[in-house]
């Protein structure tokens, strides 16, 4: 090479160097373009491709041979007009930067791209072509969409769980949960069942099910929803405040399901392992519950545990039975997230329900205790009472609550000194007293225990009072009868052994008394008097009461009839006997109610037996002349003329059972009341018994 250079040579050298440099830059650039991951394309002003790099080939699927010379081959037909507009803008010198749009690959698939398009100018600055750098952003787009979806999911979850947190009624909540699971803008499953763990019985129990029973029903429901255009929000609100509708066949089916936790199935595994399962094909899964496949006909399903405070309280089961859509990873993620959200709400509602139930139970127990139970404040004001109190006092609760206890229970203006409440107020200690309360006309065992509030301050007492008036009376009777029984056998022997000789001694002394005179007569009469005295002492000791002694009082005869009818009421019903009564205005008769009841009861029993089954008994009361009449008529088999005169005879019976004394006793009782009985009867038609009881008191007896 010549070193001695001329100036022109120098210029040429420079040009060469520059050319070399430019060539290098060009090659470098071409290399970049060629190897770029981005598609770099140039076209003329009509959109005909003039260059096409490897990136373009890879992105769009066309080779450079296929692309060059064609009008932009990757524009979807729908976007051609837009494209022409863009070309016009670039011709005018505009640069379109980072335009996100879609393009079509050679195989027809659509991809998301980001484009930067600039005009190509010649040396004079005139626009001669268009460059376009495009980047495949499908992946980015996908992530973005995913992000949005996640956001929506989260906001939906947030909405659902906040809607649910406001609902403490378990059934409503469960329905909200399942509706959220099955609504299309909820989790979008076809069917859902909520199982709850029943710890007492160690089973998983179906608590509720939501879903159509058949494809037809599914179609109807979906159509209805699309017509009503109700959002999940609307429906949640409906469930929260509307009437709670018992669902469908499917719901009932779900309620009947019970899976022992001792079994090894998918559902029980969900509880034990605390994780969700997605069963794509029940046939390939030996652990699928038979109950699900057989009763629900499910082919694929998913389950997720409901975990509250580290404990599985239930399981949500879902499937897509009617649209047969595969349950995907996304669905599972959402289902699990949802389950976690609602579990706590369900647990709270469950606890709340338990508390409510317990409260109701306590209230019921409180109300139905037959003893009087009431709370008094330390200021002697009645705060709360049970039914027994208002029944015993004969006042409505609102007439008692709020009043002073000593007014209500003792009829006093000041606390009664011996009242246990008063004592508790004074001492803060519990007291039990047996009190006779003339104001209430009875004897009570009354206990009073202090109540303290949470800060330990005495606020009042709880009071339990039992009316022992009857018990007291019975106790007295019992004591008496026990004494009598103890005396009984001895007394009988003593009476027999002493009374008999006394009778002879006294009896013969009387005979002597009549026959003798003077001193002897006097002696005899002393014996008579002394034996009489002994006899009466004997009678007194043994408490003799003459048989058939009547204890008469003024009694309303209608009431007596009602009393005896109520004794046979159930038998009348059993035998299909109609009872018809026709009472005169109430009339009081002086009689012994117990023996008259016996007397009428015997007639009524006879009537019932004469009828057997199916018939009518008519009872009438009226006044005839100077007597009250009780008339009993039956439609029974009647009494024949031959038998009629004997029916009051003792031991006379046609029934083949009974003592044969019933009507005899009746007759005697009525006779002792100075009344009479008339009987009319016709065979196969029935009998009429008329009991006449005199209205005037007679002085005898």
């Amino acid at each position, binding site marked *: 090479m010549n070193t001695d250079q001329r100036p022109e040579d120098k210029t040429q050298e420079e040009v060469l160097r520059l050319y070399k440099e430019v060539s290098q830059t060009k090659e470098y650039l071409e290399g970049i373009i060629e190897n770029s991951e981005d598609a770099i394309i140039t076209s003329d002003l009509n959109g005909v491709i003039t260059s096409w790099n490897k990136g373009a080939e890879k992105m769009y699927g066309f080779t450079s041979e296929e692309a060059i010379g064609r009008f932009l081959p990757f524009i979807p037909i729908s976007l051609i007009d837009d494209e022409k507009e863009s070309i016009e803008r670039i011709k005018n010198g505009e640069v379109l930067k980072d335009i996100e749009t879609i393009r079509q690959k050679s195989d027809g698939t659509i991809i998301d791209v980001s484009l930067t398009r600039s005009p190509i100018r010649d040396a004079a600055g005139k626009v001669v072509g268009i460059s376009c750098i495009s980047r495949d952003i499908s992946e980015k787009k996908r992530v973005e969409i995913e992000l949005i979806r996640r956001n929506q999911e989260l906001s939906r979850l947030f909405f659902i769980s906040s809607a649910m947190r406001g609902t403490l009624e378990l059934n409503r909540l469960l329905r909200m949960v399942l509706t959220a699971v099955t609504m299309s803008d909820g989790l979008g499953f076809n069917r859902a069942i909520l199982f709850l763990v029943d710890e007492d019985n160690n089973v998983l129990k179906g608590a509720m099910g939501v879903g159509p029973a058949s494809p037809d029903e599914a179609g109807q429901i979906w159509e209805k929803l699309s017509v009503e255009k109700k959002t999940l929000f609307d429906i949640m609100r409906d469930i929260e405040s509307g009437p709670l509708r018992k669902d469908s066949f499917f719901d009932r089916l779900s309620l009947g399901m019970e899976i022992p936790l001792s079994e090894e199935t998918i559902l029980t595994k969900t509880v034990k392992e605390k994780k969700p399962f997605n069963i794509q094909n029940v046939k390939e899964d030996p652990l699928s519950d038979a109950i699900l496949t057989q009763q629900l006909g499910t082919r694929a399903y998913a389950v997720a545990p409901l975990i509250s405070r580290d404990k599985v309280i239930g399981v949500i089961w879902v499937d897509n039975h009617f649209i047969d859509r595969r349950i995907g990873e996304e669905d599972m993620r959402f289902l699990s997230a949802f389950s976690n959200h609602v579990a706590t709400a369900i647990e709270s509602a469950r606890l709340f329900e338990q508390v409510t139930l317990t409260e109701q139970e306590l209230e019921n127990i409180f109300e139905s205790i037959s003893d009087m139970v009431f709370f008094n404040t330390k200021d002697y004001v009645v705060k709360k009472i049970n039914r027994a109190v208002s029944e015993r006092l004969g006042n409505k609760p609102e007439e008692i609550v709020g009043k002073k206890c000593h007014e209500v229970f003792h009829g006093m203006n000041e606390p009664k000194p011996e009242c246990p409440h008063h004592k508790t107020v004074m001492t803060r200690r519990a007291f039990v007293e047996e009190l006779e309360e003339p104001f209430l006309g009875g004897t009570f065992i009354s206990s009073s225990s202090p109540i303290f509030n949470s800060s330990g301050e005495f606020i009042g007492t709880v009071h339990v009072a039992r009316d022992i008036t009857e018990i007291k009376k019975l106790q007295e009777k019992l004591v008496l009868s026990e004494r009598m029984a103890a005396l009984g056998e001895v007394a009988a022997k003593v009476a027999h052994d002493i009374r*008999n*000789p006394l009778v002879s001694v006294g009896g013969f002394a*009387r005979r002597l008394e009549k026959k003798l005179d003077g001193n002897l007569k006097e002696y005899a009469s002393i014996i008579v008097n002394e034996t009489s005295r002994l006899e009466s002492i004997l009678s007194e000791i043994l408490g003799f009461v003459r048989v058939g002694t009547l204890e008469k009082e003024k009694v309303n005869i209608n009431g007596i009839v009602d009393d005896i009818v109520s004794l046979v009421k159930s038998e009348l019903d059993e035998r299909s006997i109609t009872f018809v009564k026709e009472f005169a205005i109430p009339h009081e008769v002086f009689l012994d109610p117990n023996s008259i009841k016996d007397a009428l009861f015997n007639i009524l029993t006879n009537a019932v037996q004469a009828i057997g089954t199916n018939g009518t008994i008519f009872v009438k009361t009226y006044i005839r002349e100077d007597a009250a009449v009780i008339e009993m008529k039956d439609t029974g088999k009647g009494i024949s003329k031959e038998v009629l005169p004997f029916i009051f005879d003792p031991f006379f019976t046609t029934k083949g059972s009974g003592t044969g004394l019933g009507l005899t006793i009746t007759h005697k009782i009525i006779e002792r009341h100075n009344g009479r009985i008339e009987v009319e009867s016709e065979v196969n038609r029935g009998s009429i018994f008329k009991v006449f009881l005199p209205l005037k008191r007679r002085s005898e007896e």
Partner: protein
Amino acid sequence: MKILVVDDDEHILRLYKDELSDEGYEVVLAANGQEALDLFYKENPDLVTLDIRLPDIDGIQLLRQMKEKRPRLPIIMSTAYDYRDDFSIWASEAYIVKSSDLNELKSMIRKLLSKE
């Protein structure tokens, strides 16, 4: 009028016999249940006074048997002890606690026999 008196105390039987005879009744006496039944059939009495406590057959049993045969026969239960709890007592016409004063018994008998 014939009265059958049934009692296991011989002195009482004697007293009754004397007292009732004085009233003009024919009196037959039985000291136990079996005797009473025999006389009931043989003598065909118009009235019976029955002691309840007897050595063989209970007075209530006798009452029953007699009433089954002759429902309208007036029977007075006469006893040293109170039997009011026994239902069958109702089959008798009257019930009296034995007393050395026989006036009540006598007036009862008069009343029952005059009804016949």
